[in-house]
């Protein structure tokens, strides 16, 4: 009976092992073959890249650049992808005049047109690659094509388009970029903010105009105005300090804290220390701390006994407010905020005062 059972197991096991073994053997052959092909391709790529390296390097040299562009224009079709890769790799670490030369070379080689056409490709990675490359060479003529990709169904393409438009800095892209703040992806929001930063002061008006049309966006716009870092936004921000929505008030005060406070906003921040919302009071304490105005010390000293979020901002602010700040911290040493005050005093004694962002 045992023998029959063993024979039965063997009848099942042996074919299963043989099948699995054959499958794995084929996989091993494919993997080894893949290695050989990849190695051969890498060698070819290195060889071709080396051939054109002198021309690519010459793009940095104002005198030699025209000659190099001419030479690159003559690159045979089968080498163009490799040269394009080398040019883009160069642009990852380069700015300034070399970008213009690379752009000229890309035009001469027909790469710019190829990348523009790639924006309409059916393959998402080609569209993303095209958007990335056009951004790298700062191809202004591609703005509208890139704007069209802001609604692409693939996030990677939308991301590449936002990054490219940020690099281009063309005002025509501002309004569509602001709309991109409502993308479903949280990461895209960050990318749009970074792209808008590149525009500086010119981004303020489209952002405000967007806020006028979408009041629900006020808090986000306030945060963005702080991130864009332009003092031309101070007026609407101070106005929003009195908004009825605590989220908007907190965002406005956070932005003011980042931008730095003038006389008027200093008093708004002082007033906000008595706000009913903890977030607003914490943002106000931060704004006061960043104002570096010594007369703020007693107010921040009182805020040390507020909720933890407010107390932390106040403590950091007092640390940076010189003698007056130190006096308040000493006073708090014996009170409930003792641990925090001790920490700040310790930091004061051990290291030079530093700004706290």
């Amino acid at each position, binding site marked *: 009976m045992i023998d029959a059972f063993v024979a039965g197991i063997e009848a099942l096991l042996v074919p299963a092992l043989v099948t699995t073994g054959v499958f794995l053997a084929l996989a091993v052959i494919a993997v080894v073959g893949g290695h050989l092909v990849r190695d051969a391709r890498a060698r070819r790529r290195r060889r071709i890249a080396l051939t054109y390296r002198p021309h690519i390097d010459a793009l940095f040299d104002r005198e030699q650049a025209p000659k190099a562009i001419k030479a690159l224009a003559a690159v045979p079709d089968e080498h163009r992808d490799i040269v394009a890769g080398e040019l883009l790799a160069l642009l990852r670490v380069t700015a300034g005049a070399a970008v213009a030369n690379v752009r000229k070379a890309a035009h001469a080689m027909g790469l710019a047109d190829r990348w523009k056409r790639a924006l309409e490709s059916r393959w998402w990675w080609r569209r993303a690659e095209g958007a990335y490359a056009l951004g790298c060479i700062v191809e202004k003529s591609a703005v509208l094509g890139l704007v069209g990709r802001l609604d692409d169904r693939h*996030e*990677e393409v939308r*991301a*590449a388009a936002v990054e490219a438009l940020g690099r281009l800095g063309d005002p025509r892209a501002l309004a569509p970029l602001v709309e991109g703040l409502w993308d479903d992806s*949280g990461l895209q929001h960050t990318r749009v903010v970074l792209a808008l930063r590149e525009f500086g002061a010119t981004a303020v008006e489209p952002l405000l105009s967007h806020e006028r049309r979408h009041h629900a966006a006020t808090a986000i716009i306030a945060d963005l105005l702080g991130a864009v870092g332009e003092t031309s936004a101070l007026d609407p921000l101070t106005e929003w300090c009195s908004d009825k929505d605590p989220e908007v008030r907190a965002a406005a005060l956070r932005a003011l804290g980042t931008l730095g406070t003038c006389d008027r906003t200093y008093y708004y921040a002082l007033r906000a220390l008595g706000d009913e919302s903890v977030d607003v009071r914490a943002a106000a304490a931060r704004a006061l701390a960043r104002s570096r105005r010594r007369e703020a010390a007693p107010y921040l000293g009182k805020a040390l006994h507020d909720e933890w979020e407010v107390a932390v901002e106040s403590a950091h602010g007092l640390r940076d407010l010189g003698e007056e700040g130190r006096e308040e911290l000493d006073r708090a040493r014996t009170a409930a905020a003792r641990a925090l005050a001790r920490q700040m005093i*310790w930091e004061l004694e051990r290291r030079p005062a530093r700004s706290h962002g």
Partner: protein
Amino acid sequence: MAMREVLSHAIAVFDVGVILYFIALNTLYLTFTAIAFFELRRRRKRWTPREISGIMQSPATPPISIVLGAFNEQLTVVASVRSLLALNYPAFEVVVVNDGSADNTLAALQDAYGLVEAPLTHAHAIPTQRVRGVYRSPTTPDLVVIDKVNGGSKADAINAGLNAAKHPLVCVIDADSLLDNDALVRVVLPFIEDARTVAVGGMVRVANGCTIEGGRVTEVRLPRNWLARFQVVEYLRAFLAGRVAHSALNALLIISGGFGLFRRDVLLEVGGFAADSIGEDMELVARIHRHCLEQRRPYRIVFLTDPVCWTEVPESARGLALQRNRWHRGTLDVLRRHAVMIGNPKYKRVGLLASPYYALFEAFGPVVEGLGYAVTIVGACFGLINWPIAKLMFLAALVYGILISVGAVLLEDVFFRRYRRLGDLLQLLLFGVVENFGYRQLTMWWRIRGWVDFLRNKGGWTPTPRKGFARA
């Protein structure tokens, strides 16, 4: 004559049982490999470099406290901390716990970072041995050093670090672990993707033989030492096939102590690492599962292959024996502590899949395998063995095992290709075959010794002797 027949029959019955056990074990592992293949293929398309860079720039990326315990690490601790501080992540702190070192670990850190004593302002949420002092660096604000009385276990040191950690996520690593530059950015992704995530484990790879510069692995090569090469295949099989599949089933029962990221609030809820456990990493994960399931809380414990931690594996038989003995005692200890989960439907997949698998195949595996070999060899010597059964044993245990190892090496090459040279790949395949003849039986023996020591309540935590990384 009749006695001989009875004995021969008994051996045959026993061997058939062992054969069925081997077939079940290897089929399970083959299934894990298949699940891992599809899971890795799905994950490969998930996060692109652009998204990774988005994580770096996003203000919403959660900050991390890296906690590492250091006991008599004066030669390596400064380089370890330096490489951790240079990791690519937007907001993190490094909390080093000097666990009552008898050497100059604390002095080395003081010299390197100009540490000064700071007030102890954090709560002592998890009881640990007494903290003697907290030190901070004026030049490196993201470094906190805790000096405490030795607690006799890594768990006690890590718990002291957990108390001091200020960020919502805590990354626990070994003092001799090397992280890839992007390891934190990658290991944090499940927390961003899904709010139910409570813990994530990263891949542990073998650093022996690799080129290490500035605390980073810059060139991946195979170790020169044979024992270490076998362990490369072993790690690939355990991590790429086993843990990926367990994670896909949300039944991951172990996150390596070398590299794991946890939600701090959950760690505090469950009371941190168990200081009296030998396998504290596995014990913690089992306790988190148990805690969340008993509270009917939706949760996820994930294993990822992209965040990589490099570790030095023992190159001597003695070191490896000590390690495997300890690991096995750890597994048995965890299964004993959480025996209530085994086969219990209340604990869902952990109760019905993961814990029975660990009990049946990980805990009892070496005993069954050892007895199978012993009975077959003795039977063969006395002419009591049925040769078709011996042949079947060879096929089920060794040939099937070879296929599993080759499968794991292929997973590595198809999805990661860390060993870029064709020669290294071929060697890995070769070692996947050869490990089944000698190495596997050796580790089985060390694990049986672990069983014996566990039953005799002998052992404790014995550090594994290592050579140390040659850092450039």
